């Protein structure tokens, strides 16, 4: 147990792990989970088939909530997460698109490119801190390999507000 001095009301007793968003002053960032993963070897989805993108390498994973074997982010802290991902294919194509899945169903569609090689998806998702997970899927009109690499084909997330 940690004892802290509260300047306005006296002494408060705060147990580790019990601080919630409302306890933080405006502008104070928490230490919630954050991760950044990327694809280190390419994969070749079938044409016009939404395929789960595999991100098997990590840049960082502060709370060990990202699983490189399943390419899933399953945070153990409930809250609202900023999730971003980018997928790039080897050659210019059309109907390149990325989407974010939560618990196996699409929740956010990313940019759609008619002539380019990449698609980007970014948005907020509420994750319950126990069973909710997110994944990234992508599709392209012609079957071809992704162009992997750190900062090229990546999947990132960070807690921006606790539940």
């Amino acid at each position, binding site marked *: 147990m940690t004892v802290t001095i509260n300047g306005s009301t006296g002494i408060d007793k705060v147990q580790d792990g019990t601080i919630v968003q409302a306890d933080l002053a405006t502008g104070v960032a928490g230490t919630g989970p954050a991760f950044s993963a990327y694809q280190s070897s390419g*994969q070749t*989805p*079938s*044409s*016009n*088939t*939404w*395929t*789960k*993108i*595999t991100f098997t390498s990590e840049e960082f994973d502060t709370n060990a909530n990202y699983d490189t074997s399943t*390419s899933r982010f399953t945070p153990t802290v409930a809250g609202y997460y900023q999730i971003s991902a980018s997928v790039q294919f080897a050659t210019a194509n*059309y*109907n390149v*698109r990325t989407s974010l899945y939560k618990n196996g169903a699409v929740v956010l*569609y990313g940019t*759609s490119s008619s002539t380019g090689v990449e698609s980007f998806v970014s948005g907020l998702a509420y994750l319950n801190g126990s069973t909710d997970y997110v994944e990234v*899927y992508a*599709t392209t*009109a012609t*079957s071809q390999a992704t162009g992997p690499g750190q900062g090229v084909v990546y999947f990132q997330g960070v807690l921006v507000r606790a539940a």
Partner: protein
Amino acid sequence: MTLYDKIMALYPELQPQDFLTTIRLQNDSDGRGDYIADWNHPTLPKPEIE
């Protein structure tokens, strides 16, 4: 022949754009291959893939 190729052979009038949201072919990268996750085409019935 991929699942997409089989469907296009059956319904050549489909366009690639139909497979973005109206028809969703999916692969979960778990070794089980491609499958039809959603079929919401207004006129063409969902095929039975063998």
